[in-house]
């Protein structure tokens, strides 16, 4: 068997599906970090969204309600983080980790009776003739609503941050919260709203996994997707459009690894020498590439990290 049995169109189609949850979580976290807050609780918010969406979708029979519930669930969990870090001025790193831990435990608890059930199917938009296009049809136009929604969210965030006044305020708050406050901007309010947005997006990403991709509920089913989303934000240098590439890269490597295994490809022939492809090396690759990108970006004198990232804002009156 060789790599020729891998169909590029199907591979890219799978890649797009695999990248959607992390894309959603990453764009949410990007907004949060641009506002100057580092929320490490993405994993907890994703899994909470996954179980909330699953339970509501299953109980009401409507996947749409499930999707809405997942956004609310993720946002509700992030509200705890918002209160802790913005009002109680708690350490952001610790708060985020506590959020992840609590989210994982809490979701497993309420999800107890829901293992082994198939949720109602979320229908895909029928894009008619677009799906008939050779290659591009299967690659791009046969997906479900959330795939397109994810890309739309990324584009909207990009426009928001760059061209709207509110986006400017958010960026200002993230760069230098003291100056923003002096200018009269409500730092705390902006940050809380950003955190809630991040929570909602992460919850939606989680619901994608439990309602569409698998679709089933299992404890801890996000398997570190939240941490990957954090890496994607840095990989994208906090620029929204680059989130697309980051998500595709990570999603793609996971899918590629499975496809290579299925096709029985175990080595890459590079004329002079062979690289053996063990499953574990392929699985490692996205993380190593992220580190490489991190190094390359920080090596350049300009770092794009928001100036106030991770610092608590407190008005001393």
């Amino acid at each position: 068997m060789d790599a020729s049995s891998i169909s590029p169109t199907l591979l890219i189609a799978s890649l797009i599906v695999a990248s959607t949850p992390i894309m959603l979580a990453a764009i949410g976290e990007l907004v949060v970090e641009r506002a100057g807050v580092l929320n490490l609780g993405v994993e907890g918010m994703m899994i909470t969204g996954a179980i909330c969406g699953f339970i509501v979708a299953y109980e009401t029979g409507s996947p749409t309600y499930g999707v809405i519930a997942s956004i609310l669930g993720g946002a509700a969990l992030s509200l705890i983080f918002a209160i802790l870090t913005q009002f109680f001025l708690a350490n952001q790193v610790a708060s985020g980790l506590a959020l992840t831990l609590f989210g994982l435990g809490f979701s497993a608890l309420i999800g107890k009776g829901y293992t082994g059930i198939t949720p109602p199917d979320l229908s895909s938009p029928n894009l008619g003739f677009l799906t008939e296009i050779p290659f591009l049809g299967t690659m791009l136009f046969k997906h479900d609503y959330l795939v397109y929604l994810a890309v739309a969210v990324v584009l909207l965030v990009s426009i928001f941050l760059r061209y709207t006044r509110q986006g400017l305020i958010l960026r200002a708050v993230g760069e230098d919260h003291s100056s923003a406050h002096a200018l009269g901007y409500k730092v705390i309010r902006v940050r809380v709203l950003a955190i809630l947005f991040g929570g909602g997006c992460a919850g939606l990403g989680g619901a994608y996994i439990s309602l569409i991709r698998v679709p089933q509920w299992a404890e801890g089913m996000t398997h570190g997707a939240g941490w990957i989303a954090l890496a994607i934000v840095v990989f994208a240098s906090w620029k929204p459009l680059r989130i697309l590439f980051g998500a595709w890269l990570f999603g793609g490597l996971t899918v590629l690894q499975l496809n290579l295994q299925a096709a029985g490809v175990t080595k890459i022939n590079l004329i002079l020498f062979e690289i053996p492809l063990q499953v574990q090396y392929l699985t490692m690759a996205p993380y190593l590439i992220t580190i490489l990108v991190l190094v390359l970006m920080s090596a350049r004198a300009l770092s794009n990290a928001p100036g106030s990232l991770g610092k608590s804002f407190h008005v001393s009156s």
Partner: protein
Amino acid sequence: MILTKGRIMKVFKILSLGMALLTGIIIAISGTTVTAEPVKVGFIYIGPPGDHGWTYRHDIGRKDIEAHFGDAVETTFQENVPEGPDAVRAITQMALSGHDLIFTTSYGYMDQTLAVAKKFPNVKFEHATGWKTADNVSNYGLKLYQSRHVQGVIAGLMTKTNKICYVASFPIPEVIREINTFYLGAKTQNPNAELQIVWVYTWYDPGKEADAAQAMIDNGCDVITQHTDSPAPLVTAEKAGLVGFGQASDQTPFAPNAQLTGTIDNWSPYYIDRVQAVIDGTWEGHGTYFGDISEGAVGMAPFANMPQNVMDIAMDVRAKITNGTYFAFTGPLKDQSGTLRLKDGEVADRAMLDTMDWYVEGITAKYPD
């Protein structure tokens, strides 16, 4: 009344008779209260009973014990116990709290079960799918490969693309031998069948299992089987309009149009047997039970979603395996590298099955290392 010797002897006799009767009654009563104390049976699960796969079937075994013995037996269980020191603690807890018989239902509990068994010589342990035993530790497993072979036969007949795929968990002998027998079954019906294998390195992870199945479907395969515990690969097959096999339990509710059949682990006969042995006092360690399809220990879900001629051939092969006239691992059999493993007419013994670490000839996938 004058106390004569005769009268004293009479009183003495009545008193001693009374005492004897009383003692007898007391012994009888305490005897019945002793036997009325239920036998405590504990289960250590690797996953949740809600996995609708491996643990689910063990839990059914546990429930069947309760149904069969009623008040005479009390069962408890602990789920999601990770293999390692936490398992030692969980098993020890059960032993400390008065359990008479403990079932540890995963290979990875082997060393831990033995370690605890050494400390509690009066407690009896049953370990699933391992190989180490002791005076108070028995082994048990099922010949699941028998069902798997029939599945291979069906797969060979049902595939239109000649690509059949396998979502595999860990490269351990029990998984390898099932891959081999599956392939052998397919090859008897379809010499052109090609086997794709993806290793997910987990027993239960619906997300990974679904992804693996999808990747193989994208690569052209149209019949899916798995050695992992969730219905995810089958659901993925159903979504793609393809067919496949359930694992460990009948997963038709998840994939009514996709499931051709599936292996059903039936632990209940063995479990009831062993609990009875504990009650009767005849339980012995060093057991190496290997449940056979003919005993009903290995079941198969009703054949469905296949044309009649396929069903007939499959039933025929199944009947031959059940009555012992056919065994897939019969020589001449070569492995992937061409080495002859079984001579003409030779049949694989338990040792070879338990230590199988090679693919049969014809499988083109590389053996994981």
